[in-house]
């Protein structure tokens, strides 16, 4: 950012490259690690998330069977089928592993897109105020007013059951909370002297927003990113469970949907337990991580 990579002798005798590595660890990725691992919740959450991420990545190689292969139906967990099979004979462990990928993907994409939208709307509304703020906040109010289920129903009915529309539906609703909160934080930050000073030094509005305000609301942004992803995963599970999921994709939610539709809920307890546990633990893990960021932003929460 400030100096060429190789160590150049400056007039003041500084060799910069060594400093650069230390700073990178101080800021950037290293900082994230320190914040998250600094709280027991964050550490637990990160561990769970990493576990699922690893499963998602190596999934295809560790699946014992093809998740779409119809084997022996309704088998209780055994050595052959560690998590049992569904009514159509799908090996649930393989389904679960396959589902991990899809769930994570849909969740991460929806989560990130919604924070990008919500965050930017909040930033612009909070910084500019006036008309811009009014328009953007009315938009947010509309989003708040939209009931999730009818919206999903309409969307899916119009465009069919595809995971892309599901992502769209999730994003359309999840962005609203972050917008409000980030707007509030931006608003208060914009009043501070150093923003005024930045303007006085010649910074354009965009520069002020992205170079001065965003770094100062980073903990909040990260908190809401984690939270949005958690919300997105939960929402996807609900939507899929209700039958609006993509039939060509296996997610934990669709597994539960299949269970429900089969009518074997009372018999096949194994079918119910594994996806539910996964959903709950992943969402909890993400909430824990967001809590770690919150504790960093608000030191008074630490040590509880």
């Amino acid at each position, binding site marked *: 950012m*400030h100096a060429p990579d190789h160590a150049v002798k400056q007039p*003041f005798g500084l060799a910069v490259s060594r400093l650069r590595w230390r700073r990178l660890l101080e800021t950037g990725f290293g900082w994230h690690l320190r914040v998250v691992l600094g709280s027991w919740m964050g550490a637990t959450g990160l561990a769970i998330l990493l576990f699922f991420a690893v499963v998602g990545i190596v999934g295809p190689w560790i699946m014992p069977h093809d998740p779409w292969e119809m084997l022996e139906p309704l088998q209780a967990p055994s050595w052959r089928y560690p998590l049992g099979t569904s009514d159509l004979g799908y090996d649930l462990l393989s389904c679960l592993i396959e589902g991990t990928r899809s769930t994570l993907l849909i969740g991460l994409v929806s989560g990130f897109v919604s924070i990008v939208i919500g965050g930017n709307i909040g930033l612009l509304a909070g910084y500019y105020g006036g008309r811009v703020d009014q328009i953007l906040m009315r938009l947010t109010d509309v989003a708040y007013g939209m009931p999730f289920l009818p919206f999903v129903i309409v969307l899916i009915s119009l465009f069919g059951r595809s995971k892309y529309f599901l992502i769209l539906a999730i994003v359309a609703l999840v962005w609203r909370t972050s917008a409000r909160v980030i707007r509030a934080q931006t608003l208060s930050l914009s009043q501070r*002297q150093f923003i005024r000073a930045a303007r006085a030094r010649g910074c354009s509005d965009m520069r002020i927003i992205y170079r001065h305000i965003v770094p100062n609301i980073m903990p909040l942004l990260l908190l809401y990113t984690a939270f949005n992803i958690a919300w997105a995963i939960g929402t996807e599970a609900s939507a899929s469970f209700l039958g609006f999921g993509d039939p060509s994709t296996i997610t934990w939610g669709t597994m539960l949907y299949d269970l429900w539709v089969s009518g074997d809920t009372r018999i096949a307890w194994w079918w119910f337990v594994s996806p539910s546990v996964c959903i709950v633990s992943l969402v909890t893990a993400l909430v824990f991580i967001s809590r770690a960021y919150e504790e960093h932003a608000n030191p008074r929460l630490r040590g509880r």
Partner: protein
Amino acid sequence: MALLDVNSLSKRYELRPSVLARVLSGKRMRRIEAVRDVTFALNEGEVLGIVGESGCGKSTTCAMIAGLEPPSAGTIRFRGQDIGAFGAKALRRYRRHVQIIFQDPFESLNPRLQVFDQVAEGPRALGLWSEAETEQRVLRMLADVGLPPAAYRNRFPHQMSGGERQRVGIASALVSEPELVIADEPLSMLDVSIRAGIRDLLSELAKRRRFSVIYVSHDLSIMKGFVHGLIVMYLGQIVEAGTFSSIVANPQHPYTAALLAAVPVPDPLFRRAVPDIVDDVARPLASLAGCRFAPRCRQAVDICHREPPELAASGNAAQSVRCHLRHRLQ
């Protein structure tokens, strides 16, 4: 041509009560004139002091000259150009020439930026120089303000003392080589024992780098030896103007005289005269007819309450004063 020409500058704020208040108590919209009819000129190499208490409009005036607030009326001309006519782009180019040093050394720094980035922010935002040249100039600037670059470039604001932070503020303002620097009470939040050092730094840099200064403060004593001309403001208006030495030696306006008399003196044996002023009127918001100082003035006569006085030359040519009794006060 003067470097800076300010003419009849005014700033009005409107207080709008809520609909409910208007209906229930008939409250109408009130206007506060934070700055009213301020006129002065500044030449190259000059240092102008503006003194007044909080609420007198000095900070608002600074903000308007720095282009941070639009004036409600009047013009500000920098090298002949009316900055009120500037669009966003022109205004940013203006920033290169006119900079401002803020009062609060902690609040005016971005808590997440290291010193180097803080100071380099202006030139980077304005795209003044290449990255290599920016680095050179920033480091040299840090040295010039008394912060050894090797030690300070990577520090964060919370790792520095008030004096050090203010030096960073000064460096940030001066690095783009402005021709006019507005210093808005740069010392009032610093420990007394280091104020003189910072003021001397500013004075020395002004001479060396040849920029003009508008120095705003409520403390007259620190301005001595640094400031050439002086403007005294009260409730948004200039009440007295002239050279620093002539005003301090011979204050014409009752407010200026009271200000000088009220400054506390660090000597337990000194018995100060009681300032000749009526005490403690609760903040006046409504515009009054007549002189704005009249409610507090012991010498006020009938005309003072009826007609607002104009700023005009007093007996001696070096000063102008806004007072009906200017010829009687010597």
